C-alpha cells in the first residue's frame, strides 16, 4: 500500500519520536497496527517503552489508564473507528471520568480507509467523544499542526483524543506554528460567509473560497482544530462579522463539527448555518476522494451550501 502521501501520520510518527526523546515517561501502545500508525521509529528508538497489545482495542484505554496512574504518558494507537468505537466504555470510565493522562490517537479517521468500506470509516467518533466530559478533542489540518499538537499533548496533563486523517494535504501553516488549545484560527478573512472546517478539509475550504470569489462571495475560512473544549465565543465572533455560516467535516453531520458549531450558533448568533458532511448515512468502498465527492463533501457541494446559507440570510449583502 502506498503511504507516501500520508503526510499527517508521517508527521505524527516523527513527532512521537521527538516527544519520546524529550519525555522519558512517554509510552506507546499499539494494537497490531504499528506500521499503519507510524509508531515503528519510536518502537525502534525506545523498545522498552513500546508495547503491542495485539488485536485488542478495548485494552488500549484500560492498559493506558493503568500506566498513566503510575506516572506514564501513554499514547494509544489504532484506527479511529476502533479507537473510539471499540474502546468507548473504557475511554468513558477509565480515561475521561477517571481523568487519567491518556492520549488516544485515532488514525485514518473519516473516509481515510476508503477501499476498506464503512466498517473501517470513522464517521461518528467525534460525536461519541464529544459527549464525554474531561476529554480534549483535537483535529489537525496538516503535518505542521499535527507535530505541534503531539508536542502539546505530551506536556498537557489529562485525557486527549487526537483525530488523524490520511490525506495528501500541503501545509497551510508555517513551520513555526504554535498550537494553542481552545482557539480557532482564521485562515482567511472574508465578509460574507464563515466556513468552519476541521482536519484535512481545511484545504478544501480554501479551494471553496477561490471557487466562490468570481461570484462575489467573500468566504472566511476558520480552522476549528480544537473540537473540545469548543471555542464557542470565538466561533460566535467570527460568525458576527459574516451573514451566514457553513461547516465542513469528514464525519456525520450529527455529533461532530457541524453539531458543535450549530450549538454555538443557536446560543450566540442566530444566523443561517448549513452543514456539509455525511448526511447521517453509512458509506461504501472506494478511494477517499471519490467517496468524499459521492457523499457530498466536495467544493461543489460546499458551494451549494454557501449559496443556500446566504439566500436564507436577511442581512443585506456587505
Amino acid at each position, binding site marked *: 500500500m502506498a503511504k507516501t502521501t500520508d503526510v499527517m501520520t508521517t508527521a505524527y510518527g516523527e513527532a512521537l519520536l521527538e516527544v519520546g526523546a524529550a519525555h522519558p515517561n512517554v*509510552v506507546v501502545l499499539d494494537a497490531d497496527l504499528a506500521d499503519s500508525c507510524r509508531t515503528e521509529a519510536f518502537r525502534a528508538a525506545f523498545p*522498552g*517503552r513500546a*508495547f503491542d*497489545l*495485539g488485536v*485488542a482495542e*478495548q*485494552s488500549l484505554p*484500560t*492498559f*493506558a*489508564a*493503568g*500506566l*498513566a*496512574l*503510575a*506516572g*506514564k504518558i501513554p499514547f494509544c494507537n489504532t484506527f479511529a473507528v476502533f479507537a473510539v468505537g471499540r474502546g468507548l*466504555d*473504557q475511554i*468513558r*470510565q*477509565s480515561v475521561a*471520568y*477517571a*481523568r487519567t493522562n491518556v492520549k488516544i490517537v485515532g488514525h485514518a479517521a473519516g473516509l481515510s480507509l476508503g477501499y476498506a468500506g464503512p466498517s473501517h470509516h470513522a464517521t461518528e467518533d467525534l460525536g461519541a467523544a464529544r459527549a464525554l466530559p474531561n476529554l480534549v478533542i483535537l483535529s489537525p489540518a496538516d503535518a505542521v499542526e499535527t507535530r505541534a499538537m503531539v508536542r502539546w499533548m505530551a506536556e498537557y496533563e489529562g485525557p486527549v483524543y487526537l483525530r488523524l486523517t490520511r490525506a495528501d494535504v500541503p501545509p497551510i501553516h508555517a513551520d513555526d506554528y504554535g498550537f494553542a488549545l481552545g482557539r480557532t484560527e482564521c485562515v482567511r478573512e472574508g465578509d460574507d460567509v464563515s466556513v468552519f472546517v476541521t482536519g484535512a478539509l481545511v484545504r478544501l475550504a480554501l479551494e471553496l473560497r477561490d471557487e466562490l470569489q468570481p461570484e462575489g462571495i467573500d468566504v472566511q475560512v476558520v480552522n476549528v482544530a480544537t473540537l473540545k473544549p469548543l471555542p464557542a465565543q470565538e466561533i460566535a465572533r467570527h460568525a458576527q462579522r459574516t451573514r451566514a455560516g457553513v461547516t465542513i467535516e469528514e464525519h456525520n453531520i450529527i455529533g461532530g463539527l457541524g453539531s458543535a458549531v450549530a450549538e454555538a450558533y443557536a446560543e450566540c448568533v442566530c444566523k443561517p448555518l448549513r452543514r456539509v458532511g455525511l448526511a447521517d448515512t453509512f458509506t461504501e468502498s472506494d478511494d477517499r476522494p471519490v467517496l468524499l465527492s459521492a457523499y457530498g463533501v466536495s467544493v461543489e457541494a460546499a458551494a451549494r451550501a454557501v449559496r443556500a446559507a446566504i439566500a436564507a440570510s436577511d442581512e443585506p449583502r456587505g
Partner: protein
Amino acid sequence: MEVAVKDRRHIRSLPRKTPLDPHVHAAALRDLQLAAVTMRRMLLYMGHRNRITLHYSALMSMTELVTLLYTHWLSLRPGEPHWPERDRFVLSKGHGAPGLYAALAMTGVIDERHLDGFRRLHSILQGHPDRLKTPGVEANSGSLGQGFAVACGMALAAKMDVAPWRVYCLLSDGECNEGSVWEAAQIAANLHLDRISVLVDRNGKSSYGWMAGRNDVEPLAEKWRAFNWAVEECDGHDFVSITHALARADAAGRPAALICRTVKGKGLPYFETVNTRAHVLLSDAEYAECMRCLDTLEREIADGENH
C-alpha cells in the same frame, strides 16, 4: 458507629506478607476474624444508615479478602495515600465499593464519619469507586472487568520501572463473563507481567443468581492456566489459606490468579441462602437481626481466645 478495630496489636506485630500458621499466629488470626466482623458491621451500617439498597451478599463474600489485604498484606502508608512505593489495590468488582471504603476507614486512610454520607450528594464516597473523590482509591471501577485491565496496565508500569510494589486486584467470578477480562489476561501473560495478583471472588453467583447452568465460568482455574497465568486456589474466608495462596502468587514470577472459594452472604444466614439479586434495603428488624448474628459470631471468636 464504632468502626475502628479496637485492638489489632497482634496483626500489627506481624511482618507484612507473612503466611499465617494457625498455631504460631493464633492471636493474630483472632484479631483478623474480629476485624472481619467489624467490617461486616460497617457494611450493614452503611446501607441501613443511608437507607439504600446494597449488594450485601457480594460484600460479605469479599470481607475476609479485603480485611486481610488492608490489615496485613498490602504495603501502605495510611497517612500518605500517594506514597510512590505503595502496593496498589484495584477493586475491579466496583459494586463492592462499600467493602473498600470500610477497609479505608478501618485503616485510617479516610475518616469513618464519611461512611454516614455514602452514596449521597457531596459525599467523597460514590456508589462505585472514584479515584478523584476518595483518598486511597487507585482506579475507577463499576463497568465490570475494567478495573482488572487497568490493574494490568499498572503492573506493566511496575515492571517497566522495576518497582518494589505489586498490584492486587479483586475480581468477581461474574466479571469473568466479560470478554475484555480475557483480552487483558492474554496481554498480561504476553507481556510477562510478574507484579500482579488477581484474587477471584468465586462465590458462584452473579447479580441474577447462581451462575452454574446459566452464565457459567467453569473450568475457571483451567481457563486462567490456559491464559498462561499461575493459579492458586484457597478458601476465601480462611485467613491461613488466603495468606499461603497469596505468598505463592507473589513469588510466581508471572501473573498470578487466586481462585478464592467464597460464600455469597457469608456470616449472615439470610444472605447465604437467598438466590436472588440480594440487592436489598434492610428493614430495622432485619438490620437488628443481622447485627445479632454478628454479636454471636464475635462472642464465639472471643471465647476461642479465652479457652
